């Protein structure tokens, strides 16, 4: 199974994990990214390119599923206005082996960060806002999987 969703709606980690587990394998890894409180942030505005998002996320999931022999992959990425502490992204991978599940989850997040067409705008408590810039550490993390 590959499940990809984008939208404003929040996700339920417990039920998403159960869904993945239902497709077999004894090892389920997951990652949740949240809007982190840095003391100055009010919210994030998540924009995306709807026509491309599904394609990009599905493509990442397919590679991960094949390369790590996963039983199931779920990727959910929220868009719109998200307050501090809210969920942004969920990745869940199901495999027979914990190493495969965890590595695939890590790969999906690294690729998503550099390939999936989402853009974050930070809205500060003082009313200013700013588009987030890409980070070299994300580029490096994504590249490591090409080696």
């Amino acid at each position, binding site marked *: 199974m590959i499940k990809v969703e984008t939208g404003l709606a929040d996700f339920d980690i417990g039920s998403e994990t159960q869904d993945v587990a239902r497709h077999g394998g004894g090892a389920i890894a997951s990652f949740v990214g949240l809007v982190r409180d840095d003391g100055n942030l009010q919210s994030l505005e998540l*924009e*995306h*390119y709807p*026509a491309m998002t599904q394609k990009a996320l599905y493509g990442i999931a397919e590679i991960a599923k094949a390369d790590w022999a996963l039983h199931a992959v779920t990727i959910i990425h929220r868009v719109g206005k998200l307050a501090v502490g809210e969920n942004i992204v969920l990745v869940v991978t199901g495999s027979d082996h914990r190493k495969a599940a965890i590595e695939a989850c890590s790969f999906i997040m690294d690729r998503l*960060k550099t390939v999936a*067409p*989402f*853009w974050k705008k930070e809205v500060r408590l003082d009313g200013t806002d700013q588009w987030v810039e890409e980070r070299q550490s994300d580029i490096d993390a994504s590249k490591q999987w090409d080696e």
Partner: protein
Amino acid sequence: MSRSINIVYFSWVRERLGVDEEQFVLGDEVRTIADILNLLADRGAAHADILSDVSKLRFALDQDYGTPASVIGSAKELAIFPPVTGG
């Protein structure tokens, strides 16, 4: 017969151009994304400014990543946006 391509913008590219999308008629001399960028730059100061530095931009043709050298072919949509920052 003239073809046209839909150009869509995202994030600060969209904001600074002040437009989400625009139509672009593909003349016979237009073969690559770079050719489109050159002609788009004539549409105004914001276009010229933003589109001049392609190192800060990413491109997708029919929702697949491309580069300025990518050939338009029969693509129906060109997306121009900054490096992605999701996750």
